């Protein structure tokens, strides 16, 4: 063991690292000059980072028109705005669907609304990493108005059939919000084709932006009422929030360095191609799973994930201890515990949690090989864990 082994970063489902050099440069450049945000300055020498980011995102996700791409602080912020805004526009008292695959960014806002008596909530169980459209259809009642669910699971790496689910929901007049925190930038997403009403993204994961950026695409702006009000730099004589997009939802000063970085991150992805990114990730993920499955002490929770996410446990060791050893002995950064998705873990590991490896475009084959070797070494030693030092 070396004193300071180099970091092998396999926690990209939380936040990607490293960032492409152009992302860091864009953030730096955006701070090198004063902000030239439209409507907020007489200066005009700088880049319009907000429009650049909006158009880049709209291009990557086939989201039309670009003005319907709204920027927020992160995916959780987006989900809160959309869920609260849906009730503000449509009234309380409806039935809402979500799934046990979902992250607390969906589960907590919905459970809080249920606790307040403002909605009736059904959490659908999953099978083989997703909820089938026919299970969704069976759960719809006459008062079902909304479904909110993850596109990709941050624990299992599975991707849900949002096209199939969306069709079922729209046939029954149910509004559909999709949390794309784990899919944007990792797999092709065509919002011109997918039957979703709103699609949420975050900047700091697969899109290679920096923390503090996220947003959503909203097909019909009138379907969601704004729940935040304030300065937009436009129509300032009016004492009410503008109806126009994106000002309807974007209030206050933007995160300019964050959006400059996000635009650069999205452009980086576009220059490589999402398909190429997905193919490399699929090959590396399959390698890791193949290696881990060789160890009888290792349980892999989804052996065929679509996303570059591998969740596992080692028999005889707490997941937290495995993460500790990976980090301290091998310099491998993973994530352990519940990953903010308690219901997934209740279903797959009795709520104990797991170790999660998650890859990015920058993960090398050699890093995957070292990680697999390290996990196998820990697993082989796990049998000797009980006893005196």
């Amino acid at each position, binding site marked *: *063991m070396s004193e300071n082994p180099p970091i092998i970063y396999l926690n990209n489902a939380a936040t990607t690292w490293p960032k492409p050099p152009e992302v860091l440069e864009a953030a730096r450049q955006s701070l090198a000059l004063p902000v030239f945000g439209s409507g907020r300055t007489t200066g005009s020498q700088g880049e319009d980072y907000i429009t650049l980011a909006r158009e880049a995102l709209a291009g990557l996700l086939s989201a039309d028109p670009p003005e319907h791409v709204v920027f927020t602080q992160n995916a959780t912020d987006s989900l809160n705005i959309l869920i609260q805004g849906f009730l503000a526009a449509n009234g309380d008292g409806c039935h809402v669907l979500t799934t046990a695959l979902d992250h607390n960014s969906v589960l907590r806002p919905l459970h809080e609304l249920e606790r307040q008596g403002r909605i009736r909530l059904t959490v659908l169980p999953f099978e083989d990493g997703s909820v089938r459209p026919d299970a969704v259809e069976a759960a719809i009642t006459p008062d079902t108005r909304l479904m909110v669910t993850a596109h990709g699971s941050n624990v299992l790496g599975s991707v849900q059939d949002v096209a199939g689910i969306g069709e079922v929901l729209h046939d029954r007049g149910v509004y559909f919000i999709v949390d794309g925190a784990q899919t944007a930038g990792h797999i092709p997403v065509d919002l011109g084709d997918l039957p979703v009403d709103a699609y949420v993204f975050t900047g700091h994961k697969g899109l290679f932006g920096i923390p503090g950026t996220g947003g959503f695409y909203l097909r019909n702006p009138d379907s969601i009422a704004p729940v935040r009000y304030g300065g937009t730099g436009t129509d300032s004589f009016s004492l009410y929030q503008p109806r126009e997009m994106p000002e309807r939802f974007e209030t206050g000063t933007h995160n300019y360095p964050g959006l400059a970085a996000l635009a650069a991150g999205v452009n980086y992805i576009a220059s490589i191609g999402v398909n190429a990114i997905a193919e490399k990730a699929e090959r590396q993920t399959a390698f890791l799973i193949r290696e881990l499955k060789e160890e009888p002490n290792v349980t892999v929770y989804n052996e065929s994930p679509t996303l570059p996410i591998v969740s596992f446990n080692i028999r005889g060791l707490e997941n*937290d*201890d495995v993460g*500790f*050893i990976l980090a*301290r*002995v091998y310099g491998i950064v993973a994530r352990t*515990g*519940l990953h903010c998705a*308690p219901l997934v873990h209740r279903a797959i590991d009795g709520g104990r*949690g797991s170790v999660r490896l998650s890859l990015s475009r920058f993960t090398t084959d050699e890093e995957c090989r070292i990680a697999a070797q390290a996990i196998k*070494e*820990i697993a082989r*030693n*796990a049998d*000797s*864990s*009980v*006893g*005196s*030092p």
Partner: protein
Amino acid sequence: MRILRSVRHKSCADGTFMKEFLLSAPVPAGLFSYLENFGEVESLPNLGEGFYKFEKPDWFSIKGLAGDTTVEVRFKKEVMDLTVNFLYLLFSSYREGSVDLPVLKQREEAVGKRVREHLYGRD
């Protein structure tokens, strides 16, 4: 050996409160043999210089690697105020070869009584 300061902390999903402590010297494997006087120790001696984990149910657990200058401690939150001083005492009392165990065991018994009363009521 002394605890110098806490360098990281978080509330854990299992209801414990984790603190990572920086120590005045690297952890010797012998530390965990000494800790075995006060709880259970598990080890994976072949990983790095050895991974060790000390468990004292209802009090705290300590995990670390021999040779590291930090350890991770998970306190049972409800009685952390009662047990944290004993943790500091465990480290400051440790010297290879000469530890006054009877004094420490006396202190452990006194703190243990208060922990039991707090968690389960009076005996």
